[in-house]
């Protein structure tokens, strides 16, 4: 319990330092540039205290829960006793299939429940005048993130170079951009950013680090990263594809009716 307390005080001080720039910015622009008093000063002060306390609790909990969960799951699912349960001693990438399934499930479930994605899906439905369904888009993005994490863990297990995957992904995005309906491109690009939430990022990162530690011959400093990059890139591809397919289907529907 004492270690919790000393950690708490230490993180609290750092957090105050981290939140200071935003407060300075708002006070400076409100008072010096716009020359107006701060509205609802009491709320701003209480809100500021909440932000500092909340951030401190979150960071502490992250170190005690989210990071360990990710690392322990990776370690348990890639332990030789678990991977080689059916008598294998030499492991190829195929033996680590539980890791890929776990990563895909985490990706799918966290994305389906992600509040900012729900907001984006509502906007997309509005912009497209109803042709893009909210659930269709959410499931598409969730499948995109699930695939991203499965491929990402496969990459860590095999140790293949990250930039090759990303480069292929970029080429696909560029080709899709040429054909996609122009007004939805910005939305698709932004969907990459909204899927990776504050809770998911640390967990997924820890999963990657833990996996690169456990698989023989992998270096965490080089192989441990990349899961978050995949989780931001794949949804762009998924959304562009979804938008494209919806467009074709609507066009076909109109043609057959004529």
């Amino acid at each position, binding site marked *: 319990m004492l270690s919790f307390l000393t950690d708490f005080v230490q993180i609290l001080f750092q957090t105050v330092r*981290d939140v200071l*720039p*935003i407060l300075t*910015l*708002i006070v400076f622009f*409100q008072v010096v*540039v716009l020359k107006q008093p*701060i*509205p*609802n000063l009491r709320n701003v002060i209480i*809100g*500021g205290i909440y*932000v500092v*306390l*909340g951030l401190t*609790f*979150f*960071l502490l*909990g*992250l*170190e005690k*829960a989210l*990071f*360990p*969960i990710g690392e322990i*799951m990776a370690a348990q699912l890639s332990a030789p006793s678990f991977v080689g349960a059916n008598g294998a001693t030499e492991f190829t990438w195929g033996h680590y299939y539980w890791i890929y399934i*776990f990563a895909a*499930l*985490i990706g799918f*479930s966290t994305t389906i*429940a992600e*509040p900012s994605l729900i907001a984006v899906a509502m906007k997309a439905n509005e912009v497209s005048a109803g042709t893009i369904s909210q659930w269709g888009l959410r499931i598409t993005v969730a499948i995109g993130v699930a695939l991203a994490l499965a491929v990402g863990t496969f990459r860590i297990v095999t140790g293949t170079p*990250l*930039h090759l995957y*990303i*480069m292929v992904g*970029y080429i696909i995005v*560029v080709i899709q951009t040429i054909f996609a309906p122009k*007004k939805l491109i*910005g939305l698709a*690009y*932004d969907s990459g*950013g909204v899927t*990776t*939430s*504050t*809770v998911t*990022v*640390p967990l997924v*990162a*820890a999963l990657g*680090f833990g996996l690169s530690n456990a698989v023989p011959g992998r270096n*965490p*400093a*080089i*192989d441990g*990263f990349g899961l*978050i*990059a995949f989780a*931001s890139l794949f949804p762009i591809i998924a959304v562009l594809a979804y938008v494209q397919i919806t467009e074709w289907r609507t066009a076909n529907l109109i043609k057959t009716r004529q």
Partner: protein
Amino acid sequence: MIFLKKLWSAVTDLIPIILVVVFFQLFVIQQPFPDIWEVVIGSIFVVLGLMLFIEGLEMGLFPIGETLAYALAKKGSLFWLLSFSFALGFSTTIAEPALIAIAKEAARISADAGLIGNHPTTTSNYALGLRLSVAVSVGLAIVIGIIRMLKGWPLYYLIIGGYVLVMLMTAIAPPEIIGLAYDAGGVTTSTITVPLVAALGVGLSNTIKGRNPLFDGFGLIAFASLLPMIFVMGYGLFWF
């Protein structure tokens, strides 16, 4: 009631993870989970912290940030608008929880691998430097995004240009930084940055004639994921 609703929305962030992990523990791994109580207490902290954090943002920061963004967009002074945009991107990124966590972890891993010194001051400087380079790049990304909106340049030209730059930097950056740099792009845009930047974008496209807030407001976040990759690779060139 409102308190319960906030608590529930923080819990729903964690529920999918808990379900998947518990399922795997019970049916696939079937082994005791180490330090289970510390993890449980930590999870409660995560929920509590996230709830307080978002409540605080909605009480104080978001309303004032949004009216400020709107007022500055209307004021018509390009200098103040762009300085505000930069400072907004910079300061929200410095306070971004996921980035704080990842920077610390990345510093630990680099120290374990012997890439940087193992001294606590060295690792915390490395983590802070990492966050500063991401914060500067997000600030610049927002400035570029605003200029794009004012000039009406097509979004995809800049994104494709950004991709080309990322690839060029990958060719010269040390291999130890590439993975982290790519991840930095996805980390930057979460809890604080997105709502405030979106408010700025929507406020701005409302004040410019012939701009649609729904289309132009989009795309600011996409820049904020691209530029950090380029800057963190630059940071790696400087360190290794």
